[in-house]
């Protein structure tokens, strides 16, 4: 990425970090199964978890705990992992293709576009469960195209902060339009009021299945695109010289980001800052290579989201916080740190 010191990183360190992060993610997932806002404490949850996994027949208390762990917390944890990884990867991709360390789907209006599309669809009478994912992906696609178009405007592309400002404004506009739709339409408002602030609570396993095709396609694109993207980081001419086609690469990146952000937004609502923090941390750990950043962003994003979700359950027991609030509290200082640390062009 631009402005990063070109330190040479030992080849094995990214793998070490990947292993460490995966272990941390596994621990976070277990914690996410054990802790909750309700009355089922860690001890009871542990017995419920054992009853679920080992198939032990247990008393009525354990059966209740098993229900909580199996039907409420397990889907929630899985969604947290998927959403976090998707947003982390989307952030890394968007940052690479706009050459802007501040590019982030939430900040740039991609998530807001997705949310608006869902609000419109529900207001027009679509049932939330069936149409939400493709509609959200379409909305995210529109947002992505707008962002890339803005980043191609002369003077904006070289100026990371101007793009972020434009994105913040676009986000605000789309958010206002969503609020307006909610205002007119009581049914829509009831259906998505709590989805709009970003939360993982109360999602069904069927909702997860609806995400898998989009995420699978996006993952395939990421695998194919990682190398050309690394070449594109050296400049358009270099990439062309190496036999890659920058236009195609960019197009694929847009599609992948739209699929990732659309899927994540469809199930969890617009969640900002994960896509900023994950690639930022990944670059700190593994250096500037886009491929490493991309792969490390997956577990970091997942870890961040699952961690924020656990915190959202524990901070204001017995009620819960919107997840988007927590990621914003973590992410806003990182945004400031990026601006302070990096020698951004135009700063």
């Amino acid at each position: 990425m631009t402005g990063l010191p070109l330190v040479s990183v030992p080849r094995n360190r990214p793998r070490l970090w990947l292993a460490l992060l995966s272990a941390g993610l596994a621990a976070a997932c277990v914690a996410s199964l054990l802790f909750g806002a309700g009355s089922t404490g860690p001890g009871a949850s542990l017995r419920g978890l054992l009853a679920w996994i080992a198939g032990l027949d247990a008393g009525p208390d354990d059966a209740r705990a098993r229900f909580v762990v199996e039907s409420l917390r397990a889907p929630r944890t899985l969604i947290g992992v998927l959403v976090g990884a998707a947003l982390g990867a989307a952030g890394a991709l968007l940052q690479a293709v706009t050459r802007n360390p501040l590019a982030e789907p939430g900040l740039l209006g991609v998530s807001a576009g997705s949310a608006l599309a869902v609000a419109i669809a529900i207001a027009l009478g679509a049932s939330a469960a069936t149409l939400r994912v493709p509609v959200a992906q379409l909305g995210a696609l529109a947002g992505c195209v707008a962002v890339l178009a803005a980043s191609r405007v002369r003077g904006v592309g070289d100026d990371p902060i101007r793009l972020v400002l434009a994105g913040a404004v676009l986000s605000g506009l789309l958010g206002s339009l969503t609020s307006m739709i909610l205002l007119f339409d009581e049914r829509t408002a009831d259906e998505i009021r709590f989805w709009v602030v970003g939360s993982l609570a109360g999602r069904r396993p069927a909702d997860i299945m609806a995400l898998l095709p989009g995420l699978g396609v996006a993952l395939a694109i990421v695998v194919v695109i990682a190398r050309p993207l690394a070449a594109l980081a050296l400049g358009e001419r270099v990439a062309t010289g190496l036999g890659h086609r920058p236009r195609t690469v960019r197009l694929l990146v847009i599609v992948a980001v739209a699929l990732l952000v659309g899927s994540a937004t469809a199930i969890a609502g617009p969640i900002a800052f994960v896509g900023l923090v994950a690639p930022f941390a990944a670059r700190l750990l593994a250096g500037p290579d886009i491929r490493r950043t991309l792969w490390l962003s997956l577990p970091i994003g997942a870890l961040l989201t699952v961690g924020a979700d656990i915190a959202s359950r524990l901070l204001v027991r017995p009620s819960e916080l919107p997840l988007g609030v927590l990621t914003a509290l973590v992410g806003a200082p990182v945004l400031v740190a990026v601006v302070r640390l990096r020698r951004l062009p135009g700063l």
Partner: protein
Amino acid sequence: MWRIAARGHDGRWSILVDKRATAANLLLTGLLLAASLASLCLGSASIGATAALRGLFGHGDAMTVFVIRELRLTRLAAGLLSGAAFALAGCLMQTLARNRLATPGIIGIDNGATAFAVASVVGTGFGLAPPAMALAGAATATAITFGLAGGVGTRGYRFIVAGIGVGAAFGAGTQLMLARAPIDNANTAYPWTVGSLNAADPLAVELLAVGLPAALVGAGLLARALAAVRFSDAVARGLGIRVGRCRLHALALAVLLSALAVAVAGPVGLIALMGPEIARHLSSRRGVPLFGAALAGALIMVVADLVGRRVLAPIEIPAGLITSVVGAPFLLWILLRPGHRIGA
């Protein structure tokens, strides 16, 4: 020449009157009066213009007098005052940061004020009144933003993005408090999330009614210095202006105005961007159109509130949403004009 010199009868003093700025201010005042009258007349029960004016002075039947004076006039006053305060604060911030995007809404001051005001409204242990808390919040947010950015003016953009981060954190804090508070009625939360005149606090309106004229006088005293600070610190210093002090005063005024306005109407930040912009286009390029910006801001707020009330009656669209939907494309246009410099 756009300027004329008028001499006193004894020839010892003269004032420079900027013809174009005067014309612009008169135009804005006229529009503002028309919008205010419309705001008094239109509502769920429409009242004719003459009846409304008579009601305003206490004539006519009791019902009309009550509707005009108790309901619509207080709302109109809240709109006029808060709109003018937002725009004046925006104009001051833009000038001292030399950047048209550096308005209190964008750099997080509004969000800081909102967060603190909400803290006092939902009763999280602080006993102060919302306006005082809003002031504390605005000052806190400003201090944090300045601390993070390492000063203003020299690094305009860093300052703005630091402000966006600070604003996002405070916005999340507001959401957090609203989520914890037993507010199941979205209408109660609306003024604090998007900005609306629906539930303006009478105490806050009274405070603003005192604060705004004082701030206008203060801004008027600063106008000359600000007009020079617009160019560069060196130029301003060469003209004999104490730049640091001028900045500090302008900043203090902007923070005060934003806080008082937020306490009345919530974060309707885009007015701070649009008001000065309109005033700048209408009046001459010399000087800083402080007064024109205040007039334009009041006009935007009153019109936005009127549109929000009437367009889809009986559903009321908060004024903050109207300004956001109208103002955001405008802001995008400023940002994305190819090859255009935003600074200065």
